[in-house]
């Protein structure tokens, strides 16, 4: 069921991302202070925003699981968090490259935005471990959902606190005090953000479809052949 509309979505994602990065390199002007290096912004910031929204979406899906006890919500939360972790990994690497080019250091421990994002990343790194440590499927889903809700609430609070921090050298993306970005930059940024969001949704649907098909094959095997191998083995991933 999750595979429905996947082809159109994938096409739209490819189109939006190609358009965004074509605009980045052929249309958008170089930023006055940082020059060409600032082009990393159109990749790094949308990836960070989508990753953080994915973590929050995982929390919402976790909350839905706790309300309904429907395994599909647990799977939705798992896939959203899993994809956000991959994006967050990309954010840390691209951010590090940008930091080296702009500030001359790969990492700055006194920079609240960098450290807080690392904390969020490490927090979610324990999600898989938590899931794998619990054998009972129902208990695994319940504990993981509680984790997803609490961590999902922590993400926006953490972000807001960092934005309010006094010591601040990290570039503020959508700040209003300095007049914001020029219109070309803002348009390109919004298209890149839409492309990244579409990529997230496409991969989320793809992974959901894959997991759902796997679960159906296992169920079919168990029903038709009574095969014990069809029973799900211990895994961090939820089973339907």
């Amino acid at each position, binding site marked *: 069921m999750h595979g429905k509309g996947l082809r159109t979505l994938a096409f739209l994602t490819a189109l939006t991302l190609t358009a965004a990065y074509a605009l980045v390199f052929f249309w958008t002007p170089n930023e006055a202070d940082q020059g060409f290096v600032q082009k990393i912004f159109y990749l790094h910031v949308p990836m960070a925003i989508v990753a953080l929204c994915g973590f929050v979406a995982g929390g919402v899906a976790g909350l839905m699981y706790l309300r309904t006890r429907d395994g599909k919500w647990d799977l939705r939360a798992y896939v959203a968090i899993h994809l956000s972790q991959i994006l967050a990994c990309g954010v840390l690497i691209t951010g590090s490259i940008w930091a080296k080019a702009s500030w001359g250091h790969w990492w700055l421990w006194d920079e609240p935005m960098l450290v807080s994002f690392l904390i969020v990343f490490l927090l979610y790194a324990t999600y898989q471990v938590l899931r794998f440590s619990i054998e009972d499927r129902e208990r695994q889903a319940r504990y993981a959902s509680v984790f997803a809700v609490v961590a999902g609430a922590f993400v926006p609070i953490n972000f807001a606190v960092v934005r309010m921090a006094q010591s601040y050298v990290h570039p503020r993306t959508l700040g209003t005090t300095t007049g914001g970005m020029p219109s070309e930059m803002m348009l390109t940024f919004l298209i890149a953000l839409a492309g990244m969001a579409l990529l997230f949704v496409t991969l989320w649907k793809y992974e959901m479809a894959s997991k759902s098909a796997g679960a159906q094959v296992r169920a079919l095997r168990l029903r*038709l052949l009574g095969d014990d191998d069809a029973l799900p083995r211990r895994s961090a991933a939820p089973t339907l």
Partner: protein
Amino acid sequence: MPALPLDEAGKYVAAAYLVFLALLLVYVAIMSGRLGRLERDLTDLNRELEERDRQRERDPERVA
């Protein structure tokens, strides 16, 4: 820190975009591996069902 010249900055920008591409490709490779496993499972399931049908045709009472 002053803005880096284009030849210097280009390396960093290329590296950042290549990281994104690499992450995407690794993810797609892992997912295609999973898809391959799913296809193998379906092939096995079909083969086992055909085998069961053949046995049923040969010896209907025993299978039943």
